[in-house]
């Protein structure tokens, strides 16, 4: 990998870390487009449980992995919500980059020069 590409990647990652780690704390906490549509027609109590009506979300179930340490974009055990979101967001960016870049690297097309040691393609 060239040095210039390395700098570009580092810069891009820094931007992503700032967005997920800092800016995310100012994101809207309203239900999103799908969720809002799914809730329309039902009434909810303060805990967010459905109390009546008919809506798409009526049969909605809990997430199987709802107890994950990073569930709902927070770090379990970190009381400060700003810090919790920031750390979870930064962890997500690094994990996604690592998983993505790793898998794409493994799947990449090799140039002939790459398999000089082997039996050839």
């Amino acid at each position, binding site marked *: 990998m060239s040095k210039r590409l390395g700098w570009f990647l580092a810069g891009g990652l820094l931007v992503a870390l700032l967005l997920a780690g800092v800016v995310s704390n100012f994101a*809207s*906490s*309203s239900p999103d487009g*799908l969720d809002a549509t799914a809730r329309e027609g039902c009434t909810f109590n303060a805990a967010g449980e459905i109390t009546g009506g008919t809506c*798409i979300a009526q049969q909605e*179930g809990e997430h199987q*992995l709802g107890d994950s340490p990073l569930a709902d974009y927070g770090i379990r055990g970190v009381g400060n919500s700003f810090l919790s979101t920031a750390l979870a967001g930064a962890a*997500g960016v690094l994990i996604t980059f690592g998983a993505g*870049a790793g898998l794409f690297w493994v799947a990449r097309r090799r140039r002939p020069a790459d398999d000089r040691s082997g039996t050839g393609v």
Partner: protein
Amino acid sequence: METTAMHIANGIVDGPVSAAFAVLAVAALAFCVRKARNDLDERLAPMAGLVAAFIFAVQMLNFQVLPGVSGHLLGGTLAVILVGPWVGALCVSTVLIVQCLLFADGGLTALGLNITNMALLGTAAGYLLVAGLLRILPKTASGLAATAFVASVISVVVASQGFVLEYALGGTTELSLPWVSGTMAGVHVLIGIGEGLIAATTVATVAKVRPDLVYALRRFRRPAFAKVGVNA
């Protein structure tokens, strides 16, 4: 803060239909991997990792579109422009899988539904629009920004209608389909405008700093059929 991303939760679409879409998603992703290998070289592989990480970050940024309703970028069009359709679909899928497995966002049972809508439908629509628009618009930073904006708006609405199809086939409740379709389309036009602005800013920035890293520009600079340097 409680972030809920625009992902289908468990139990909204029944088991058999969710399973069928999971099979469809796995098959489509396997096809994408095959096609993506032609595009993936030493430069595109780390770039694709960055695009996935960037989409993850921006998906955390819910913006208000109506009182009490928010939305966030889905990223299909952005990915198509920067890394191409096949790698792009895999980037969005990577994000959805990380979100589902680690952040409990988007039901595990619903993962196939979410991948179908956002990674496959959204990306496919984005690709067709980008390919079409770049034939008429100039291949400059501003032409690319306009392309990203228009393609994003439409691609988000298409992805939202993927949910309507899944709900029609296996919804666990009986709401009027025209109402579901209309409500989803209406709110997703607004979300698409937000996504379009983010995608346009991002691709214009990359096109100014490193135009050689923009898949859509590289590919359209030479005839589309000339597979330079690829031994078949």
